Protein backbone atom coordinates (compact mmCIF):
# COMPACT_ATOMS: atom_id res chain seq x y z
CA UNK A 1 0.00 0.00 0.00
CA UNK A 2 1.28 3.40 -1.00
CA UNK A 3 -0.17 6.46 -2.77
CA UNK A 4 1.34 5.34 -6.09
CA UNK A 5 -0.13 1.86 -5.72
CA UNK A 6 -3.48 3.25 -4.65
CA UNK A 7 -3.70 5.42 -7.78
CA UNK A 8 -3.21 2.39 -10.03
CA UNK A 9 -4.98 -0.19 -7.91
CA UNK A 10 -8.32 -1.15 -9.49
CA UNK A 11 -9.74 -2.26 -6.12
CA UNK A 12 -8.99 1.02 -4.36
CA UNK A 13 -10.28 3.04 -7.31
CA UNK A 14 -13.43 0.95 -7.40
CA UNK A 15 -14.03 1.52 -3.68
CA UNK A 16 -13.44 5.22 -4.13
CA UNK A 17 -16.35 5.37 -6.56
CA UNK A 18 -18.47 2.89 -4.58
CA UNK A 19 -18.18 5.08 -1.49
CA UNK A 20 -19.02 8.22 -3.47
CA UNK A 21 -22.03 6.53 -5.09
CA UNK A 22 -23.27 5.12 -1.76
CA UNK A 23 -23.03 8.55 -0.15
CA UNK A 24 -24.85 10.08 -3.13
CA UNK A 25 -27.60 7.44 -2.88
CA UNK A 26 -27.88 7.99 0.86
CA UNK A 27 -28.14 11.75 0.33
CA UNK A 28 -30.75 11.29 -2.38
CA UNK A 29 -32.86 9.03 -0.14
CA UNK A 30 -32.65 11.53 2.73
CA UNK A 31 -33.49 14.38 0.38
CA UNK A 32 -36.49 12.41 -0.92
CA UNK A 33 -37.69 11.79 2.65
CA UNK A 34 -37.37 15.46 3.47
CA UNK A 35 -38.64 17.18 0.35
CA UNK A 36 -41.24 14.75 -0.99
CA UNK A 37 -42.45 12.92 2.10
CA UNK A 38 -41.89 15.94 4.41
CA UNK A 39 -40.39 13.78 7.14
CA UNK A 40 -38.39 15.14 10.05
CA UNK A 41 -34.82 14.35 8.94
CA UNK A 42 -32.66 16.89 10.79
CA UNK A 43 -31.00 14.29 13.02
CA UNK A 44 -30.49 11.93 10.10
CA UNK A 45 -28.81 14.69 8.10
CA UNK A 46 -26.46 15.32 11.01
CA UNK A 47 -25.54 11.64 10.98
CA UNK A 48 -25.17 11.80 7.20
CA UNK A 49 -22.76 14.77 7.27
CA UNK A 50 -20.65 12.88 9.77
CA UNK A 51 -20.64 9.87 7.43
CA UNK A 52 -19.33 12.07 4.60
CA UNK A 53 -16.50 13.40 6.75
CA UNK A 54 -15.61 9.95 8.10
CA UNK A 55 -15.65 8.46 4.58
CA UNK A 56 -13.37 11.25 3.38
CA UNK A 57 -10.88 10.76 6.21
CA UNK A 58 -10.98 6.97 5.77
CA UNK A 59 -10.35 7.15 2.03
CA UNK A 60 -7.47 9.59 2.46
CA UNK A 61 -5.82 7.46 5.16
CA UNK A 62 -6.10 4.23 3.16
CA UNK A 63 -4.88 6.10 0.06
CA UNK A 64 -1.80 7.31 1.95
CA UNK A 65 -0.71 3.74 2.51
CA UNK A 66 0.12 1.03 4.99
CA UNK A 67 1.85 3.08 7.69
CA UNK A 68 -0.83 5.81 7.88
CA UNK A 69 -3.54 3.13 7.96
CA UNK A 70 -1.92 1.32 10.89
CA UNK A 71 -1.25 4.60 12.71
CA UNK A 72 -4.82 5.72 12.04
CA UNK A 73 -6.27 2.49 13.42
CA UNK A 74 -4.02 2.77 16.48
CA UNK A 75 -5.12 6.36 17.10
CA UNK A 76 -8.77 5.36 16.72
CA UNK A 77 -8.23 2.58 19.24
CA UNK A 78 -6.52 4.98 21.65
CA UNK A 79 -9.34 7.51 21.51
CA UNK A 80 -12.02 4.82 21.62
CA UNK A 81 -10.38 3.33 24.71
CA UNK A 82 -10.23 6.81 26.22
CA UNK A 83 -14.00 7.05 25.82
CA UNK A 84 -14.41 3.65 27.44
CA UNK A 85 -12.16 4.71 30.31
CA UNK A 86 -14.08 7.94 30.81
CA UNK A 87 -17.40 6.14 30.82
CA UNK A 88 -16.30 3.35 33.16
CA UNK A 89 -14.42 5.63 35.55
CA UNK A 90 -11.12 3.91 34.82
CA UNK A 91 -9.75 7.24 33.55
CA UNK A 92 -9.02 8.28 37.13
CA UNK A 93 -6.38 5.56 37.39
CA UNK A 94 -3.54 6.81 35.21
CA UNK A 95 -1.42 3.74 35.86
CA UNK A 96 -4.02 1.40 34.40
CA UNK A 97 -4.94 3.63 31.48
CA UNK A 98 -1.25 4.19 30.83
CA UNK A 99 -0.67 0.44 30.71
CA UNK A 100 -3.54 0.01 28.24
CA UNK A 101 -2.25 2.86 26.05
CA UNK A 102 1.15 1.19 26.06
CA UNK A 103 -0.52 -2.08 25.03
CA UNK A 104 -2.43 -0.40 22.19
CA UNK A 105 0.74 1.27 20.92
CA UNK A 106 2.48 -2.12 21.08
CA UNK A 107 -0.30 -3.60 18.92
CA UNK A 108 0.38 -0.82 16.40
CA UNK A 109 4.13 -1.44 16.52
CA UNK A 110 3.67 -5.19 16.05
CA UNK A 111 1.60 -4.41 12.95
CA UNK A 112 4.24 -2.04 11.60
CA UNK A 113 7.54 -3.83 12.08
CA UNK A 114 8.62 -7.09 10.48
CA UNK A 115 9.97 -10.06 12.42
CA UNK A 116 13.42 -8.91 13.61
CA UNK A 117 15.05 -12.12 12.42
CA UNK A 118 14.37 -12.67 8.76
CA UNK A 119 11.01 -10.96 8.39
CA UNK A 120 10.33 -9.26 5.11
CA UNK A 121 9.91 -5.51 5.64
CA UNK A 122 6.36 -4.24 5.43
CA UNK A 123 4.72 -7.50 6.42
CA UNK A 124 4.09 -7.05 10.13
CA UNK A 125 5.17 -9.41 12.90
CA UNK A 126 2.19 -11.72 13.16
CA UNK A 127 3.58 -13.93 15.93
CA UNK A 128 4.12 -10.97 18.21
CA UNK A 129 0.85 -9.34 17.16
CA UNK A 130 -1.10 -12.37 18.33
CA UNK A 131 0.97 -12.53 21.55
CA UNK A 132 0.59 -8.86 22.56
CA UNK A 133 -2.33 -9.62 24.95
CA UNK A 134 -0.02 -11.83 27.02
CA UNK A 135 2.34 -8.95 27.62
CA UNK A 136 -0.36 -6.32 28.00
CA UNK A 137 -2.31 -8.38 30.54
CA UNK A 138 0.90 -9.19 32.39
CA UNK A 139 1.62 -5.46 32.61
CA UNK A 140 -1.92 -4.71 33.81
CA UNK A 141 -1.72 -7.42 36.49
CA UNK A 142 1.66 -6.11 37.54
CA UNK A 143 0.44 -2.62 38.35
CA UNK A 144 -1.34 -3.36 41.67
CA UNK A 145 1.75 -5.31 42.75
CA UNK A 146 4.04 -2.42 41.91
CA UNK A 147 1.79 0.05 43.71
CA UNK A 148 1.21 -2.28 46.68
CA UNK A 149 -2.55 -1.84 46.50
CA UNK A 150 -5.42 -4.30 46.53
CA UNK A 151 -8.62 -2.41 47.32
CA UNK A 152 -10.77 -2.08 44.21
CA UNK A 153 -7.95 -3.31 41.99
CA UNK A 154 -9.87 -6.29 40.61
CA UNK A 155 -12.40 -3.94 39.08
CA UNK A 156 -9.68 -1.73 37.62
CA UNK A 157 -7.72 -4.66 36.24
CA UNK A 158 -10.85 -6.17 34.71
CA UNK A 159 -11.89 -2.93 33.08
CA UNK A 160 -8.39 -2.40 31.76
CA UNK A 161 -8.19 -5.93 30.34
CA UNK A 162 -11.61 -5.75 28.70
CA UNK A 163 -10.76 -2.32 27.30
CA UNK A 164 -7.44 -3.50 25.93
CA UNK A 165 -8.71 -6.76 24.42
CA UNK A 166 -11.85 -5.32 22.85
CA UNK A 167 -10.71 -1.96 21.71
CA UNK A 168 -6.96 -2.20 21.49
CA UNK A 169 -6.36 -5.68 20.22
CA UNK A 170 -9.50 -6.99 18.52
CA UNK A 171 -10.10 -3.70 16.74
CA UNK A 172 -6.36 -3.46 16.07
CA UNK A 173 -6.65 -6.41 13.66
CA UNK A 174 -8.00 -3.90 11.16
CA UNK A 175 -4.57 -2.26 11.12
CA UNK A 176 -2.80 -5.60 10.75
CA UNK A 177 -4.91 -6.36 7.68
CA UNK A 178 -3.07 -3.48 5.96
CA UNK A 179 -0.07 -5.86 5.78
CA UNK A 180 -1.90 -8.33 3.56
CA UNK A 181 -0.91 -8.52 -0.09
CA UNK A 182 -4.59 -7.92 -0.87
CA UNK A 183 -4.76 -5.09 1.69
CA UNK A 184 -6.97 -2.73 -0.34
CA UNK A 185 -9.58 -5.42 -0.92
CA UNK A 186 -9.65 -6.63 2.68
CA UNK A 187 -9.52 -3.26 4.47
CA UNK A 188 -11.90 -1.44 2.15
CA UNK A 189 -14.33 -4.35 2.05
CA UNK A 190 -14.69 -4.89 5.77
CA UNK A 191 -14.99 -1.19 6.58
CA UNK A 192 -17.49 -0.58 3.80
CA UNK A 193 -19.49 -3.78 4.37
CA UNK A 194 -19.66 -3.29 8.13
CA UNK A 195 -20.74 0.32 7.76
CA UNK A 196 -23.37 -0.62 5.21
CA UNK A 197 -24.75 -3.46 7.32
CA UNK A 198 -24.94 -1.02 10.26
CA UNK A 199 -26.97 1.35 8.11
CA UNK A 200 -29.09 -1.60 6.93
CA UNK A 201 -29.78 -2.68 10.52
CA UNK A 202 -30.87 0.86 11.34
CA UNK A 203 -33.02 1.21 8.23
CA UNK A 204 -34.70 -2.19 8.45
CA UNK A 205 -35.25 -1.68 12.16
CA UNK A 206 -36.89 1.70 11.51
CA UNK A 207 -39.09 0.37 8.74
CA UNK A 208 -40.17 -3.05 9.98
CA UNK A 209 -38.89 -3.33 13.55
CA UNK A 210 -41.27 -4.80 16.10
CA UNK A 211 -39.55 -7.60 18.00
CA UNK A 212 -36.76 -6.48 20.32
CA UNK A 213 -33.53 -8.36 19.67
CA UNK A 214 -32.09 -8.19 23.20
CA UNK A 215 -34.53 -6.19 25.30
CA UNK A 216 -32.27 -6.05 28.35
CA UNK A 217 -29.28 -4.76 26.40
CA UNK A 218 -30.40 -2.38 23.72
CA UNK A 219 -34.10 -1.53 23.47
CA UNK A 220 -33.79 -0.01 20.00
CA UNK A 221 -32.36 -3.02 18.20
CA UNK A 222 -34.86 -5.39 16.63
CA UNK A 223 -34.82 -8.84 15.07
CA UNK A 224 -36.06 -7.31 11.83
CA UNK A 225 -33.10 -4.95 11.72
CA UNK A 226 -30.65 -7.73 12.51
CA UNK A 227 -32.05 -10.04 9.83
CA UNK A 228 -32.04 -7.19 7.31
CA UNK A 229 -28.43 -6.44 8.12
CA UNK A 230 -27.52 -10.11 7.80
CA UNK A 231 -29.21 -10.30 4.38
CA UNK A 232 -27.34 -7.25 3.14
CA UNK A 233 -24.10 -8.65 4.55
CA UNK A 234 -24.66 -12.02 2.84
CA UNK A 235 -25.18 -10.34 -0.55
CA UNK A 236 -22.27 -7.86 -0.32
CA UNK A 237 -19.36 -10.35 -0.68
CA UNK A 238 -20.90 -11.56 -3.96
CA UNK A 239 -21.51 -8.04 -5.26
CA UNK A 240 -18.01 -6.92 -4.25
CA UNK A 241 -16.30 -10.15 -5.26
CA UNK A 242 -13.60 -8.20 -7.07
CA UNK A 243 -12.18 -7.29 -3.62
CA UNK A 244 -10.98 -10.88 -3.14
CA UNK A 245 -11.12 -12.64 -6.51
CA UNK A 246 -9.44 -15.74 -5.05
CA UNK A 247 -12.26 -16.39 -2.54
CA UNK A 248 -14.36 -19.47 -3.19
CA UNK A 249 -18.08 -19.90 -2.47
CA UNK A 250 -17.49 -21.13 1.07
CA UNK A 251 -15.25 -18.16 1.94
CA UNK A 252 -17.76 -15.72 0.51
CA UNK A 253 -20.52 -17.22 2.66
CA UNK A 254 -18.29 -17.11 5.75
CA UNK A 255 -17.43 -13.48 5.01
CA UNK A 256 -21.12 -12.66 4.83
CA UNK A 257 -21.79 -14.34 8.18
CA UNK A 258 -18.81 -12.64 9.83
CA UNK A 259 -19.88 -9.19 8.68
CA UNK A 260 -23.61 -9.76 9.24
CA UNK A 261 -23.48 -11.45 12.61
CA UNK A 262 -20.14 -10.16 13.87
CA UNK A 263 -21.15 -6.57 13.23
CA UNK A 264 -24.31 -6.98 15.30
CA UNK A 265 -22.44 -8.77 18.07
CA UNK A 266 -19.80 -6.06 18.28
CA UNK A 267 -22.55 -3.48 18.53
CA UNK A 268 -24.35 -5.46 21.22
CA UNK A 269 -21.27 -6.17 23.29
CA UNK A 270 -20.51 -2.45 23.51
CA UNK A 271 -24.20 -1.94 24.34
CA UNK A 272 -23.80 -4.35 27.27
CA UNK A 273 -20.99 -2.15 28.60
CA UNK A 274 -23.00 1.04 28.09
CA UNK A 275 -26.11 -0.45 29.63
CA UNK A 276 -24.30 -1.61 32.75
CA UNK A 277 -22.58 1.74 33.16
CA UNK A 278 -25.87 3.49 32.50
CA UNK A 279 -24.94 5.80 29.65
CA UNK A 280 -26.59 6.16 26.26
CA UNK A 281 -23.49 6.95 24.22
CA UNK A 282 -19.85 6.56 25.15
CA UNK A 283 -19.14 10.19 24.28
CA UNK A 284 -20.35 12.94 21.95
CA UNK A 285 -17.32 13.11 19.67
CA UNK A 286 -19.02 12.47 16.31
CA UNK A 287 -22.22 14.49 15.78
CA UNK A 288 -25.15 12.16 15.17
CA UNK A 289 -23.20 9.01 16.00
CA UNK A 290 -22.16 9.38 19.62
CA UNK A 291 -18.59 8.49 20.45
CA UNK A 292 -15.82 6.97 18.36
CA UNK A 293 -16.42 3.68 20.14
CA UNK A 294 -20.10 3.75 19.18
CA UNK A 295 -19.03 4.01 15.57
CA UNK A 296 -16.26 1.40 15.44
CA UNK A 297 -17.93 -1.14 17.73
CA UNK A 298 -19.18 -3.32 14.85
CA UNK A 299 -15.61 -3.82 13.67
CA UNK A 300 -14.54 -5.30 17.00
CA UNK A 301 -15.72 -8.77 15.96
CA UNK A 302 -15.50 -8.39 12.21
CA UNK A 303 -11.83 -7.39 11.89
CA UNK A 304 -10.25 -10.30 13.84
CA UNK A 305 -12.68 -12.96 12.62
CA UNK A 306 -12.28 -11.91 9.02
CA UNK A 307 -8.51 -11.75 9.32
CA UNK A 308 -8.21 -15.22 10.79
CA UNK A 309 -10.73 -16.67 8.34
CA UNK A 310 -8.83 -15.24 5.38
CA UNK A 311 -5.51 -16.24 6.92
CA UNK A 312 -6.72 -19.79 7.43
CA UNK A 313 -7.55 -20.36 3.79
CA UNK A 314 -4.95 -18.17 2.08
CA UNK A 315 -1.59 -16.78 3.09
CA UNK A 316 -2.16 -13.14 4.03
CA UNK A 317 1.11 -12.02 2.45
Amino acid at each position, binding site marked *: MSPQNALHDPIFRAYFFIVLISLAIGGAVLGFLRVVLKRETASMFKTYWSWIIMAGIGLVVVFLGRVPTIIGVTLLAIFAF*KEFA*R*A*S*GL*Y*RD*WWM*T*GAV*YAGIVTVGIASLIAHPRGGEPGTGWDGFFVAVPVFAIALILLIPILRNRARGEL*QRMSLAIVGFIYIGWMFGHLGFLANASNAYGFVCFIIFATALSDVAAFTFGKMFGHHPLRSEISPNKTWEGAVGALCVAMILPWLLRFSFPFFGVWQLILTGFIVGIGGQLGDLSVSVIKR*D*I*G*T*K*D*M*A*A*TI*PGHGGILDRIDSLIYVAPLFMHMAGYYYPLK
Partner: protein
Amino acid sequence: MKKWRYQSARDLDRPPIDRLRQFPREPDMLVYGLRALGALIIRGLLRIYNRFEIVGHENLRTNRSLVIVANHCSHLDTLCLQAALPLRKLHRIFPAAASDYFFQSIPRLWAAAVLVNALPFARRARVRQSLSLCQELLASPATILIIFPEGTRSTTGEVGQFKSGIGALVAGKDVAVVPCFIDGSFRAWPKGGRIPWPTKVRLIVGEPRNYRSRIADKTEICAIAAELHDAVVKLRYETGNL
Protein backbone atom coordinates in the same frame (compact mmCIF):
# COMPACT_ATOMS: atom_id res chain seq x y z
CA MET B 1 -21.42 -10.57 44.30
CA LYS B 2 -21.47 -6.93 45.24
CA LYS B 3 -22.38 -4.51 42.49
CA TRP B 4 -19.54 -2.61 40.89
CA ARG B 5 -19.72 1.14 41.03
CA TYR B 6 -18.72 3.01 37.92
CA GLN B 7 -17.82 6.64 38.36
CA SER B 8 -18.25 7.98 34.86
CA ALA B 9 -16.87 11.33 33.87
CA ARG B 10 -19.55 13.98 34.37
CA ASP B 11 -19.27 15.30 30.83
CA LEU B 12 -19.83 12.15 28.75
CA ASP B 13 -22.66 13.68 26.75
CA ARG B 14 -20.79 16.84 25.81
CA PRO B 15 -18.72 17.28 22.65
CA PRO B 16 -14.94 17.62 23.16
CA ILE B 17 -14.85 21.41 22.73
CA ASP B 18 -17.64 21.85 25.24
CA ARG B 19 -15.74 19.76 27.73
CA LEU B 20 -13.02 22.42 27.75
CA ARG B 21 -15.61 25.09 28.48
CA GLN B 22 -16.90 23.60 31.67
CA PHE B 23 -15.31 23.97 35.06
CA PRO B 24 -14.04 22.12 37.02
CA ARG B 25 -12.66 20.08 34.14
CA GLU B 26 -12.25 16.32 34.32
CA PRO B 27 -8.60 15.21 34.50
CA ASP B 28 -7.42 14.27 31.03
CA MET B 29 -4.06 12.68 30.33
CA LEU B 30 -3.73 14.30 26.92
CA VAL B 31 -4.59 17.77 28.23
CA TYR B 32 -2.19 17.39 31.16
CA GLY B 33 0.55 16.22 28.85
CA LEU B 34 0.06 19.06 26.39
CA ARG B 35 -0.05 21.54 29.25
CA ALA B 36 3.21 20.25 30.71
CA LEU B 37 4.87 20.33 27.30
CA GLY B 38 3.51 23.81 26.63
CA ALA B 39 4.70 25.03 30.04
CA LEU B 40 8.22 23.78 29.31
CA ILE B 41 8.30 25.53 25.95
CA ILE B 42 6.82 28.74 27.39
CA ARG B 43 9.39 28.73 30.20
CA GLY B 44 12.22 28.30 27.74
CA LEU B 45 10.94 30.97 25.38
CA LEU B 46 10.36 33.49 28.15
CA ARG B 47 13.87 32.97 29.50
CA ILE B 48 15.54 33.29 26.12
CA TYR B 49 13.28 35.60 24.11
CA ASN B 50 12.17 37.94 26.89
CA ARG B 51 15.14 37.44 29.27
CA PHE B 52 12.55 36.71 31.93
CA GLU B 53 13.73 37.41 35.46
CA ILE B 54 12.09 36.83 38.86
CA VAL B 55 12.72 38.98 41.93
CA GLY B 56 11.56 37.68 45.31
CA HIS B 57 11.05 34.10 44.18
CA GLU B 58 11.22 32.87 47.79
CA ASN B 59 7.81 34.44 48.48
CA LEU B 60 6.17 31.78 46.30
CA ARG B 61 7.76 28.81 48.06
CA THR B 62 4.91 27.31 50.03
CA ASN B 63 2.79 24.20 49.80
CA ARG B 64 -0.35 25.94 51.00
CA SER B 65 -3.03 27.56 48.89
CA LEU B 66 -2.15 30.93 47.42
CA VAL B 67 -3.92 33.81 45.77
CA ILE B 68 -1.58 35.65 43.44
CA VAL B 69 -2.67 39.19 42.68
CA ALA B 70 -0.94 41.06 39.89
CA ASN B 71 -1.22 43.98 37.51
CA HIS B 72 -2.44 43.09 34.03
CA CYS B 73 -1.45 44.60 30.72
CA SER B 74 -0.62 41.64 28.50
CA HIS B 75 -1.31 37.98 27.82
CA LEU B 76 2.27 37.41 28.89
CA ASP B 77 1.32 38.16 32.52
CA THR B 78 -0.37 34.81 33.07
CA LEU B 79 2.44 32.96 31.35
CA CYS B 80 5.05 34.75 33.50
CA LEU B 81 3.26 33.89 36.73
CA GLN B 82 2.82 30.30 35.61
CA ALA B 83 6.52 30.13 34.74
CA ALA B 84 7.43 31.36 38.21
CA LEU B 85 5.73 28.38 39.88
CA PRO B 86 7.14 24.85 39.99
CA LEU B 87 6.08 22.44 37.23
CA ARG B 88 4.69 19.88 39.66
CA LYS B 89 2.03 22.39 40.73
CA LEU B 90 1.11 23.18 37.13
CA HIS B 91 -2.31 21.54 37.15
CA ARG B 92 -3.29 23.21 40.43
CA ILE B 93 -2.70 26.73 39.07
CA PHE B 94 -5.93 28.41 38.05
CA PRO B 95 -5.69 31.83 36.41
CA ALA B 96 -9.08 33.54 36.45
CA ALA B 97 -9.85 34.39 32.83
CA ALA B 98 -12.74 36.46 31.47
CA SER B 99 -15.36 33.99 30.33
CA ASP B 100 -16.67 36.44 27.73
CA TYR B 101 -13.24 36.75 26.12
CA PHE B 102 -11.49 33.41 26.61
CA PHE B 103 -14.34 30.93 26.61
CA GLN B 104 -16.08 31.83 23.34
CA SER B 105 -13.80 31.43 20.31
CA ILE B 106 -12.18 28.02 19.93
CA PRO B 107 -8.48 29.01 19.62
CA ARG B 108 -8.69 31.20 22.72
CA LEU B 109 -10.67 28.55 24.56
CA TRP B 110 -8.03 25.98 23.67
CA ALA B 111 -5.20 28.19 24.83
CA ALA B 112 -7.00 29.13 28.04
CA ALA B 113 -8.24 25.67 29.01
CA VAL B 114 -5.36 23.50 27.81
CA LEU B 115 -2.27 25.68 28.16
CA VAL B 116 -2.98 27.60 31.35
CA ASN B 117 -5.89 25.71 32.96
CA ALA B 118 -7.95 28.90 33.16
CA LEU B 119 -10.95 29.30 35.38
CA PRO B 120 -13.87 30.93 33.57
CA PHE B 121 -14.63 34.13 35.45
CA ALA B 122 -17.85 35.96 34.60
CA ARG B 123 -16.74 39.54 35.03
CA ARG B 124 -19.98 41.28 34.02
CA ALA B 125 -22.89 39.21 35.30
CA ARG B 126 -22.80 36.55 38.02
CA VAL B 127 -19.55 37.76 39.55
CA ARG B 128 -20.64 36.36 42.87
CA GLN B 129 -20.96 32.85 41.43
CA SER B 130 -17.47 33.05 39.99
CA LEU B 131 -16.12 34.26 43.33
CA SER B 132 -17.72 31.36 45.19
CA LEU B 133 -16.20 29.00 42.63
CA CYS B 134 -12.80 30.51 43.48
CA GLN B 135 -13.50 30.04 47.17
CA GLU B 136 -14.39 26.38 46.64
CA LEU B 137 -11.11 25.86 44.83
CA LEU B 138 -9.14 27.54 47.59
CA ALA B 139 -10.69 25.19 50.13
CA SER B 140 -8.80 22.25 48.61
CA PRO B 141 -5.12 22.18 49.52
CA ALA B 142 -2.27 23.53 47.39
CA THR B 143 -4.44 25.49 45.00
CA ILE B 144 -2.93 28.54 43.34
CA LEU B 145 -5.33 31.16 42.03
CA ILE B 146 -4.02 33.88 39.76
CA ILE B 147 -6.21 36.96 39.76
CA PHE B 148 -5.86 40.22 37.92
CA PRO B 149 -8.14 42.48 39.94
CA GLU B 150 -8.12 45.27 37.37
CA GLY B 151 -10.51 43.04 35.44
CA THR B 152 -8.95 43.78 32.06
CA ARG B 153 -5.64 44.48 30.40
CA SER B 154 -4.40 48.01 30.93
CA THR B 155 -3.99 49.98 27.71
CA THR B 156 -1.46 52.43 29.16
CA GLY B 157 0.83 50.18 31.16
CA GLU B 158 -0.26 51.88 34.41
CA VAL B 159 -1.92 49.88 37.18
CA GLY B 160 -5.65 50.62 37.14
CA GLN B 161 -8.04 50.51 40.07
CA PHE B 162 -8.60 47.07 41.65
CA LYS B 163 -12.16 45.76 41.73
CA SER B 164 -13.55 45.00 45.14
CA GLY B 165 -14.19 41.32 44.29
CA ILE B 166 -10.63 40.50 45.27
CA GLY B 167 -11.38 41.87 48.73
CA ALA B 168 -14.52 39.77 48.98
CA LEU B 169 -12.51 36.70 48.04
CA VAL B 170 -9.79 37.02 50.66
CA ALA B 171 -11.45 38.89 53.56
CA GLY B 172 -11.76 36.67 56.61
CA LYS B 173 -10.04 33.74 54.88
CA ASP B 174 -6.83 32.18 56.13
CA VAL B 175 -5.10 32.20 52.77
CA ALA B 176 -1.84 33.80 51.70
CA VAL B 177 -2.26 36.65 49.21
CA VAL B 178 0.86 37.41 47.21
CA PRO B 179 1.01 40.76 45.40
CA CYS B 180 3.11 40.68 42.24
CA PHE B 181 4.21 43.28 39.75
CA ILE B 182 5.01 42.32 36.20
CA ASP B 183 7.32 44.83 34.59
CA GLY B 184 7.93 45.07 30.86
CA SER B 185 5.08 42.91 29.64
CA PHE B 186 3.31 46.02 28.36
CA ARG B 187 6.24 46.82 26.10
CA ALA B 188 6.68 43.20 25.06
CA TRP B 189 3.07 42.47 24.13
CA PRO B 190 0.51 45.24 24.68
CA LYS B 191 -3.22 44.77 24.16
CA GLY B 192 -3.89 44.59 20.43
CA GLY B 193 -0.31 43.58 19.62
CA ARG B 194 0.11 40.71 17.21
CA ILE B 195 3.19 38.96 18.50
CA PRO B 196 5.40 39.49 21.55
CA TRP B 197 8.52 41.60 21.11
CA PRO B 198 11.86 40.39 22.48
CA THR B 199 12.08 42.97 25.27
CA LYS B 200 12.95 42.20 28.86
CA VAL B 201 10.20 41.11 31.25
CA ARG B 202 10.57 41.01 35.01
CA LEU B 203 8.34 39.59 37.70
CA ILE B 204 8.58 41.07 41.19
CA VAL B 205 6.99 38.93 43.90
CA GLY B 206 6.00 40.69 47.12
CA GLU B 207 5.64 39.42 50.67
CA PRO B 208 2.57 37.24 51.30
CA ARG B 209 -0.28 38.93 53.16
CA ASN B 210 -3.17 37.53 55.11
CA TYR B 211 -6.60 39.04 55.65
CA ARG B 212 -8.12 36.47 58.00
CA SER B 213 -8.85 39.07 60.71
CA ARG B 214 -10.85 41.32 58.37
CA ILE B 215 -14.61 41.10 58.07
CA ALA B 216 -16.21 40.87 54.66
CA ASP B 217 -18.35 43.99 54.62
CA LYS B 218 -18.47 46.56 51.88
CA THR B 219 -16.00 49.11 53.25
CA GLU B 220 -13.51 46.46 54.28
CA ILE B 221 -13.42 44.68 50.94
CA CYS B 222 -12.89 47.99 49.14
CA ALA B 223 -10.12 48.79 51.60
CA ILE B 224 -8.46 45.43 50.99
CA ALA B 225 -8.63 45.98 47.24
CA ALA B 226 -7.03 49.41 47.66
CA GLU B 227 -4.33 48.00 49.96
CA LEU B 228 -3.47 45.31 47.46
CA HIS B 229 -3.34 47.89 44.69
CA ASP B 230 -0.89 49.97 46.70
CA ALA B 231 1.18 46.89 47.49
CA VAL B 232 1.47 46.02 43.81
CA VAL B 233 2.37 49.60 42.84
CA LYS B 234 4.90 49.81 45.67
CA LEU B 235 6.73 46.74 44.34
CA ARG B 236 7.33 48.62 41.12
CA TYR B 237 9.00 51.61 42.80
CA GLU B 238 10.92 49.57 45.38
CA THR B 239 12.75 47.49 42.80
CA GLY B 240 13.81 50.21 40.42
CA ASN B 241 13.60 50.39 36.66
CA LEU B 242 14.04 47.55 34.27
